[in-house]
C-alpha cells in the first residue's frame, strides 16, 4: 500500500516525485539556515535602522503606505498597453458582442471543416 503512495509519476520523458522534491527542499533549507547562522547580527530593533528611507521625505502613516492592486506591475501593463487596449475594446460587456464572437467562430469553423 505504501509503495503505491510513494510511486513516482512517469511523464513519458521524465519523472516527478514530490516526496523526493520535498526531501531536497528540506536539505537546501537546512544548508541555507546554517549559512545564515554565520551572518553578522548587527540588526538593532527600535533604532533608525528599522525606518524606511524615502529619499528624505517624511514617512506616511502605515495605512497610507499600502501599495494598491492598480499600482502593481505598472511597468508591465504600460509596456503591453497596445494589446491590453485591444483586449479591453474586445471585452465590451455587451451580450450582443458575446454572441457576435460566437457567430464569428462558428463561421470560421464552418469554412475550415467545410474545406476538409
Amino acid at each position, binding site marked *: 500500500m505504501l509503495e503505491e503512495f510513494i510511486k513516482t509519476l512517469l511523464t*513519458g520523458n521524465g519523472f516527478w516525485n514530490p516526496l523526493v522534491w520535498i526531501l531536497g527542499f528540506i536539505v537546501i533549507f537546512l544548508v541555507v539556515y546554517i549559512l545564515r547562522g554565520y551572518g553578522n547580527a548587527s540588526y538593532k530593533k527600535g533604532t533608525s535602522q528599522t525606518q524606511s528611507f524615502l529619499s528624505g521625505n517624511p514617512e506616511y502613516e*502605515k495605512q497610507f503606505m499600502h501599495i494598491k492592486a492598480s499600482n502593481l506591475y505598472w511597468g*508591465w501593463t504600460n509596456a503591453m498597453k497596445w494589446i491590453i487596449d485591444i483586449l479591453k475594446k474586445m471585452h465590451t460587456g455587451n451580450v450582443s458582442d458575446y454572441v457576435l464572437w460566437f457567430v464569428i467562430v462558428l463561421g470560421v469553423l464552418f469554412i475550415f471543416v467545410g474545406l476538409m
Partner: protein
Amino acid sequence: MSIMDFLLLQSPALIIAIPLLGAFLTPVIGRISDKGRNIFVILILAFTAFLVFILAMHVFETGPMTYVFGSTKNLVSNQTVIRILFEVDALSAFMAIIGIIIAFAAAIYSWSFMKEETGLDKYYTLMLLMVVGMLGMVMTGDLFNFFVFLEITSIASCALIAFRTNKGNAVAAGFKYIVISTIGALFVLMAIAILYGQYDALNIAKLAQSITFSFADKIALVLLVVALAMKGGIVPMHMWVADAYGRAPASISLILIAATQASLYGVFRVLFTLYGDVITLPSISLGWVMVILGLLTMLIGVIMALIQTDLKRLIAYGAVAELGYIFLAVGTGLTVLTTPENAANIAGYGFEAMKGGIFHIFNDILDIGLLFMVAGALYFATKESSLNKLGGLARNMKYTTVFFVIGLLAVSGIPPLNGFSSKLLIYESIFQLNPILSIIAILASIMLLAIFVKVFQSAFLGPALPQFSHVREVPKSMLIAMGIIAALIVFIGLFPDIFVTNVVEPAANALINNKEYVQWLTGGI
C-alpha cells in the same frame, strides 16, 4: 442481492434521482427548519457522492456501465425501441467525481456563507438542480438527454448567478448567461436534429457507429463543438465567464466551474466518441484548431486577469486561462491521433498530453474553486471585493490566508502541489508537438503566479487598515469547506501517481478508445 449490489446496479439512476428528489423536498423541509434543510442538502449530496464513488470504482475496474430507462431488448432488426441509455465510462465517472466533490464542498460552504441571505429554500433547490444537470450531462449516453440536462444546468445556474437580485450587476450577469446558454443550447439542439434526421437515432454510441462525415455531419460537428466550447468558456467566446463567475455567490461560482467543465466534457465526447471513428482521418486537423484556441484562451485569460482589480473577476479570468491548458493538451492528443506519421506517438506523448489535459480538469476545478472560496471568505468578512480597497487581512484571517497561499501555489503550477503534476505532463508532451507551445504555456503559468501574487500582496499583506480592524476569521463551515478542497490539493500534489494511474489513465483511455463505449450498443432512440 446485497444492498450494496443493488445500490451499484441502480446507481446511474439514483445519482440523478436522489438530488432531484432532494431538490423538491428542500423547500418543504425549509418550512420546518433552516438548519434541518441545510443538513438535509449536505446529506443528499453526501449520499450522492457515495453512489458516485461506488459507481466510479466499478467502472474503473470493469469498464463502462450501461443503464437502460425503457426497453431493454437488444435490436436485431431495424425495429424502434423507446428508451434512454445512461452510459458511464471512466471519463464520465471521472467528471462525476469532480462534480460531486465540488458540490458537496459548496453546500458546506454555503451554510455560513449564505446565512444572511433570504430565499435560501430556492437557493438550495436550484443548487441541487444544478448538480442534477451537471451529473446528467456527464452520465447520459443519449444526445437529446444531454441537451435536456444542459438546459437544466443552464436554467438553475442563471437563477443562481442572479440570486442577489438586490444587486443590478448580478441580474445583468444572469441575463447575459441565459442569453449565451439559450443560444448555445439552441445550436446544440439544431445539431441533434440534423443527426436524428439522418440516422434516426439519438444514442451517442449508435450515432458513432453510423456517422459517415457527410456534409450534414460536418455542420452538426461544428454546431456542437462551437456551442459547447462557448458554454465551456473558450476564447473568444469566454466573456460571459467573468460576468457569471464574478457576480454569482462564491459557493455558486464553485459549482459553475464544474458545470463549465461538463460542457468541455461535451466537446471531448463529441470529438472523440461521437465522431471518434471519422475524426482520426488524416485530412481532418481539428486538433490544431483546438491547440490554437487553447493558446489564445491561456494568453487572453492571463492578460485580462492581470489588469483586473475586482477579485472575483480576476479569478474568473484565471479560470479561463486554466481552461486553455486543458484545450491545448487535449488538442495535442487529437493532433497526434490524426497525423499518420505520428501514429506511433499516440501511445507516447499524445497519450501523455491527454492524461495531462484530463488531470488538469480535476486540478483546475480544485485550485480555482479554492480561490473562489477564499474570495467569498474575504467578501463575507469585509463586504469588499475590490483589490484596491483590501489590505492587511493576513493579520485577521490566518486560516483563509493559508488556504489562499495553497490555491495560489497550486494554480500557478508550483511544486509540490497538484497543478504542477498536471502541468508537467502538459509541458513535456506539447513540447514534442512544438516547443513553442510549451514555452507559451510556461509563460502563462508564470503570469498566473504574478497575478495571484498581486492578489496576495494587495489583499493579505501590507499594514493593518483601520477600516478592517473589526474583521475576524470566517465561520467554521466555510473553513471546513476550504479545508476539504485544500487537503485534496495537497494530497493529489504529494501522491500524483496514485491518482493518475487509477483515475486519470482510465479516463484518458476511455476518450481515445471509443470502441468500449460503442460496443454494448444495439440501437434505440
